[in-house]
């Protein structure tokens, strides 16, 4: 009974929305909005075939490469800058500026500097994604509990052990908040870098469909991007729950009191 109920909760609204969509496209066939049936059949035809290997997978690989590089670089640099006060003061205004630059404007710059290539697209993704991770890590490192930090110092815990057992756990929630922002920026940049300068990839293909007025195909491309976004957000939530299990446990205990 409980399973059936939560099943209804999960699928109720989507089913209702599809029904409304289906009914509203039943009578008049709008040029801009395909019927659910057309969209589903186009989706299969368009994306299950060569396109998976020529457009979808390369895009996803570039996205993964860029995002993971940005996360690693951001955390490393953040740990360094966050633990040295003078370095933080020195870099803060410059970093604030770079964070404020809208990442997509870097696409034309990097196109100029690196030419149109796969590595340029990965660098575009890195250059946009690194800021939320970096700044959140700096903040997280800065906000380490003073008592904990002093205790670690008294017990002679330093170097890598300090990073592993004190700095990373206390900055963890904040670092992951940065990672969450970085994922959506990464997806945006992947699409934009391909829309701008490319002859393959998801962004390119979708714009191509739009220019040739292949409307159902274009919608199916939007759906694919949505699915990638959803998949990334689920993977992230799952990993976050695992990494921060102690943290959520702690919060539950605190809230219960």
């Amino acid at each position, binding site marked *: 009974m409980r399973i059936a109920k939560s099943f209804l909760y999960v699928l109720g609204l989507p089913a209702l929305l599809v029904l409304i969509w289906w009914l509203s496209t039943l009578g008049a066939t709008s040029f801009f909005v395909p019927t659910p049936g057309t969209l589903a059949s186009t989706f299969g035809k368009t994306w299950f075939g060569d396109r998976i290997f020529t457009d979808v997978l390369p895009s996803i690989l570039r996205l993964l490469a860029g995002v993971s590089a940005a996360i690693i670089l951001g955390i490393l640099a953040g740990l360094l800058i966050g633990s040295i006060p003078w370095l933080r003061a020195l870099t*803060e205004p410059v970093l604030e500026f770079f964070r*404020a630059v809208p990442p*997509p404007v870097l696409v*034309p*710059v990097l196109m100029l500097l690196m030419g149109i290539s796969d590595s340029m697209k990965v660098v575009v993704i890195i250059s946009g994604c690194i800021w939320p991770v970096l700044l959140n890590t700096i903040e997280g490192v800065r906000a380490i509990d003073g008592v904990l930090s002093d205790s670690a110092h008294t017990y002679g815990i330093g170097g890598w052990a300090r990073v592993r057992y004190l700095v990373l756990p206390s900055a963890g929630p904040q670092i992951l908040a940065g990672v969450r922002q970085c994922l959506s920026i990464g997806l945006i940049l992947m699409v*934009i870098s391909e829309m701008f300068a490319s002859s393959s990839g998801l962004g390119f293909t979708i714009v191509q469909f739009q220019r040739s007025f292949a409307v159902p195909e274009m919608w199916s491309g939007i759906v694919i991007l*949505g699915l990638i976004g959803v998949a990334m957000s689920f993977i992230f939530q799952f990993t976050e729950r695992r990494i921060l299990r102690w943290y959520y446990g702690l919060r539950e205990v605190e809230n219960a009191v």
Partner: protein
Amino acid sequence: MTKRTLGLAGILGFLLTWELIPRLGLVEARFLPPASEVLAALAVDFQLTAFWAAVGETLLAWVLGLAAAVLLAVAAGFVVGSSQFLRRFTNSTVEFLRPIPSVALIPLAVLLFGVKIESSLMLIIYASFWQIFIQVLYGVADVDNVAMQTARSFGLKTVARVRYVVFPTALPYLMTGVRLAASVALILAITAELVIGSPGLGREIALAQSGGAISGMYALIVATGLIGVLINLLMRFIERKTLSWHSSIRSEVIV
């Protein structure tokens, strides 16, 4: 040395490095002009009406989009957030729609509105809406049970309860959402102009790039960064003013 002078030194150091990289020939100057040249181009831009018109277009799209997103998200957030049933019922759909990158809607926006401000607005509203909506949901869920029961036993009606209990609780969350949404809205405004070509700074950047006006392009990019910094400062200021009563602001020592 104080924090401020160090920060200033950091900026100067960065500009110096930027100046030296093309001067020493590490990167060709026609791809990366030295900082002095770019800043000079920016100074020239500041005297041009066309530049300020583009800034105006961008900020107009930003402010309209953000305002619409705030209104929609606050209305939807309070309605959905105050009912357990609606929260669970909409959860799966929200979690599906939220991660859809708004740039995926660029082709659709072009088809529907063409090269106009409406296209930018569509993307800005879509992207900013979720940031605020989710925060409002959290905020409404965070209402203290004791405060709610107290308000009830004092005989406060629904409207009064929303006004005096739910709204103050949700306000800090809402402000965080608005602050995040403000920078997202700027990103989307400029992206839309860059990719679609609706009028504004983004389009000027694309034009400068295709026209080979490289220092001009860098100057415009620096300008977008400056606008971003100003918007961040403005949002922090507004947040501090509206939440001056809240402990998170009162206990804040630095920043």
